[in-house]
């Protein structure tokens, strides 16, 4: 009979190679297999979404290569010949007549609406937070949320009616004895119409997230401020605004990632032959060239250019945010 070996302290397994490498105990891999088996139904739960993303997001990503090919509908994506030179369509875009116009319009519309549209929801949330009467607060909130639910088509329809020669705005102008202004035909007026109608529609909705952040500020901060003798205004500046900073920065970063995506839906609707010089942006150009003129490769090239710029902006702004403050997306 062997001498008694203590199975805990002297187990021969301790001498084996596997154990010395640390792999013998029931490790992560086994645990994971158990969990997968136990939760197999969760994989069914995620299947529809996964299938959706693969079909409608990842497969089109594979199709992006037609930006570098002379796409031939008959040959399909894979067998279409590569463009000569490979950046042919990008060159076509950069040297084309519309490049400077679309780029200029995209950036200016974007920065304009970005600048105004990032700040105003914050201001609104701050103001709402200071209102004392709860019914007043609710009334204003609901009133400002409603424009968000109006569809783009209806919004542009309203714009067209109200800013027409006999529309509401010109009637008000006439009350002051001035001549009617043909807003819809001036390309200079386009960007203001675009941005401020967007502000009207989106400020209330955008203020929700800031309002939520404000309601999370601890009461003790306010009490300390009162003891220190702060006025309402000072409280806003020193408590509320810093409380909103993290959210604000995240929204800025996310916004930077779509700077080049100027809401093409609304622009498309607001475009007329007369204001095209000021209203053609990169995304509407992609639509026109691709869907209407069927120049698939050129359109894909422009779209890819757009996307890549967005990505670069997103990463850059995130990096800046990360180094300047402690808030960033990743």
């Amino acid at each position: 009979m062997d001498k008694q070996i203590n199975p805990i302290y002297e187990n021969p397994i301790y001498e084996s190679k596997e154990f010395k490498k640390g792999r013998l105990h029931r490790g992560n891999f086994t645990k994971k297999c158990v969990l997968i088996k136990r939760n197999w139904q969760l994989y069914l739960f995620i299947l529809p979404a996964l299938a959706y993303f693969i079909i409608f997001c990842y497969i089109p990503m594979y199709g992006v290569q037609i930006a570098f090919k002379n796409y031939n509908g008959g040959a399909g994506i894979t067998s279409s010949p590569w463009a000569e030179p490979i950046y042919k369509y990008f060159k076509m875009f950069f040297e084309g007549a519309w490049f400077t116009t679309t780029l200029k319009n995209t950036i200016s519309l974007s920065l304009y609406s970005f600048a105004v549209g990032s700040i105003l929801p914050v201001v609104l949330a701050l103001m709402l937070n200071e209102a004392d009467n709860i019914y007043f607060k609710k009334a204003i909130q609901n009133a400002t949320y409603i424009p968000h639910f109006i569809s783009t088509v209806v919004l542009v329809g309203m714009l067209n009616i109200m800013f027409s020669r006999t529309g509401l705005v010109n009637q008000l102008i006439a009350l002051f004895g001035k001549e009617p202004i043909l807003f819809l035909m001036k390309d200079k007026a386009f960007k203001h119409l675009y941005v401020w109608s967007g502000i009207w529609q989106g400020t209330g909705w955008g203020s929700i997230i800031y309002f939520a952040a404000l309601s999370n500020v601890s009461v003790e901060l306010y009490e300390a401020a009162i003891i220190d003798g702060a006025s309402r205004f000072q409280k806003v500046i020193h408590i509320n605004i810093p409380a909103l900073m993290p959210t604000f920065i995240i929204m800025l970063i996310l916004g930077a990632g779509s700077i080049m995506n100027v809401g093409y839906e609304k622009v498309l609707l607001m475009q007329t032959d007369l204001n095209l010089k000021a209203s053609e942006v990169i995304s509407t150009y992609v639509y026109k060239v691709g869907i209407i003129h069927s120049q698939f490769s050129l359109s894909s090239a422009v779209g890819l250019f757009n996307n890549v710029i967005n990505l670069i902006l997103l990463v850059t702004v995130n990096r800046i945010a990360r180094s300047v403050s402690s808030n960033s997306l990743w």
Partner: protein
Amino acid sequence: MAIRRKLKSDILFNIINLFLLSIIFIIAVYPIWFVLCASISDPVFVNTGKVLLLPKGVTFSGYVSVFKDPAILLGYRNTFFYTIIGTFINLCVTLPAAYALSRKDFVGNKLFTLIFLFTMFFSGGLIPTYLVISKLNMVNTIWVLLVVGATGMTNIILSRTFFVNSIPPEMQEAAQIDGCSNLRLFTNIILPLSKPIIAVMSLFFAVGHWNEYFTAMIYITIPKLKPLQLVLRDILVESQFNAKMIEQGVIDVGEISERLKLQELIRYSLIVVATLPVMCLYPFIQKYFVKGIMIGAVKA
């Protein structure tokens, strides 16, 4: 004396704040109110500036024309269909996925999240997506409006945040110890507890479907399947050309003026009719949704 000084500046602050908020209220509400009034007023009064606060010369002929137009009725029927079925599909795709991602013991959680998240930042673009959809033979079918946009990472994250924060993991573990399968867990326990997020998501998806026009514009060209917004676009936006030609004096105004006036009236009535269902839905969901947004938004 120091306290009184502070009170004064506080009162001033309050007054300015309330004043500005009231102006914002008016700016937000007045355009909508104006459209409502104008839709039941005589167009002559509308165009000459007599209708500013209240309707004048009440007439419902605009609405009558709207409801008699077959294209509009078809658009309405289509949009109702797309909205109801589409929202249901959206919920079935988004909520289970969000729940799966909310479970800590879901192996591959991080991987899936990354896969989904990446689509938020990079996409194939308009043309490649169009090619995929036409290869799938979905162009000019009902499926393109029901399936495209079935989910998005923003909504999945919002829902996942809700599941993580509002459903205690202890309850789920207890149910699993009792031998409850994941499927039953989801349908019998999680879903009844998720009424707020279901309400919020339904609202988002429904409004999205109701207001959808660009996808329809690209993929649907046969009138039988056109949603309401597309019909609206034809009437509200495209027909601007007529008005412009009049303003430039190209067409003789003459007897066309009557038709034009009715056209204006129809436009206002159309706006009201197109937006009314969403407006009616809003108060019902409002109860859940501000709370839901706050929960989701703060954490996300």
